[in-house]
């Protein structure tokens, strides 16, 4: 005989598969939904369903979107001669929040990681270079993360883009706001010194 009713057990199991949710949290979430109003549970179920049904990748920039091309690629007001290359769709919202970038994006969906067997073929690199062929793009901004894999990816992209004669820039590396010079690593501090600006 089952101790827990089957629908509850099923939901607990489903929650348990999510990242960072253990068996106890999964139980708590399931029992919370059991007690919550019908609408709340239905809204959650619908949100999950539409996520899988309606979300796809933009055929130009490979960001996640409901319409193809995505809203950013469709926007005539934006500067289509600048492409900012990011690792994941998650990287776009913070860049947008700065309000300082009016160009378009390209999502690689990962970084080169030789030790995990991820090379250029596993990323949207071919798609990026075909976007650059028609000569309309004037600048590519490499916004991969400033860690070893991100740097490797950026260096590889530079190797591919350089022959096309397009301006390549990299997000500046320096000290984060609210940090401490004493604890900065040599790589960052060195870059911060090299890229210092008139004040």
């Amino acid at each position, binding site marked *: 005989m089952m101790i827990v009713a089957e629908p509850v057990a099923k939901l607990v199991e489903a929650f348990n598969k999510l990242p960072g949710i253990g068996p106890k949290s999964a139980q708590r979430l399931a029992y919370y939904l059991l007690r919550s109003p019908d609408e709340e549970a239905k809204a959650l179920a619908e949100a999950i369903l539409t996520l899988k049904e309606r979300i796809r990748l933009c055929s130009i920039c490979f960001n996640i979107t409901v319409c193809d091309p995505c809203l950013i690629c469709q926007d005539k007001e934006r500067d289509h001669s600048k492409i900012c290359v990011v690792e994941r769709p998650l990287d776009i919202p913070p860049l947008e929040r700065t309000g300082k970038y009016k160009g378009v994006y390209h999502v690689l969906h990962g970084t080169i990681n*030789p*030790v995990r067997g991820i090379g250029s073929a596993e990323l949207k690199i071919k798609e990026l270079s075909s976007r650059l062929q028609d000569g309309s793009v004037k600048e590519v901004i490499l916004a991969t993360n400033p860690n070893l894999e991100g*740097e490797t990816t950026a260096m590889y992209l530079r190797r591919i883009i350089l022959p096309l004669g397009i301006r390549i820039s990299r997000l500046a590396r320096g000290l984060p706001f609210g940090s*401490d010079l004493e604890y900065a*690593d040599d790589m*960052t501090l*060195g870059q911060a010194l090299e890229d210092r600006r008139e004040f």
Partner: protein
Amino acid sequence: MKTDVSSKKVGTGRSRSYQTQAIIIKQTRLGEVDKIITIYTPEFGKLKAVAKGSCRPGSKLGGNVEPLTHSLMMLARGRNLDIITQSQAIDVFPALKNDLWRTSCGFYILELIDSFTVENNENHPLFDLLLDTLHRMCQDDNSETILRYFELHLLNYLGYRPQLRECVICDSPVKQTFNFFDPDRGGILCPGCGQEQPGARPLSVDALKILRLWQSCDYTTARRVKLGAGLRLELEQVMQGYIKYLLQREVKSVSWLEELKK
């Protein structure tokens, strides 16, 4: 069990924290902001430790726990994994990290170390070899020689030193002719024995001489050897064939190095 490991780590009694040099081999995400860092240390061999909060922008660990960094670390003993409380970079190898080919060679070196070693197994010469190899990668353009020299000596320190003097089947001294290398037996085969072994691959006299020399000389001597393209390729194939046999799998970063060579 636990006490044994701990007392070995400090040498005298048990203290709650200890300091060590470390070369960072690998990192994996742990939850939202933490990372599990795999390090190679002179006293304890390979270790895994947690770098708490190192994904946060203002983290004091941040860049000091990136792979391909030589650091001085302070670790606190944890229940499962130890926790990195401080990390100060001794050398970040900027010349290596600012070059695509050298960085990729660095990935290969780290993958070999990670694949061939087990945790908590001290191997001081191997730590020195790793550190020297990373320094050489920064200073010397001769990456092929650096890698082959590293591979040979890595196998040496791990007990897989290939036998290159006598035929490993019939014990006869190797003659100045085309011989065979057999990964399965870990050494050289004379032409007579080699032809009968399906896994053995032919090995030229020059390649054999270089392998013998590199096995026993220091790096300054090793780098004086000038290699033609054919010989370089042969040495690479012999060594990587042997390594693949020992690990019983492909070394993943090799395919990336091949892609870059194109």
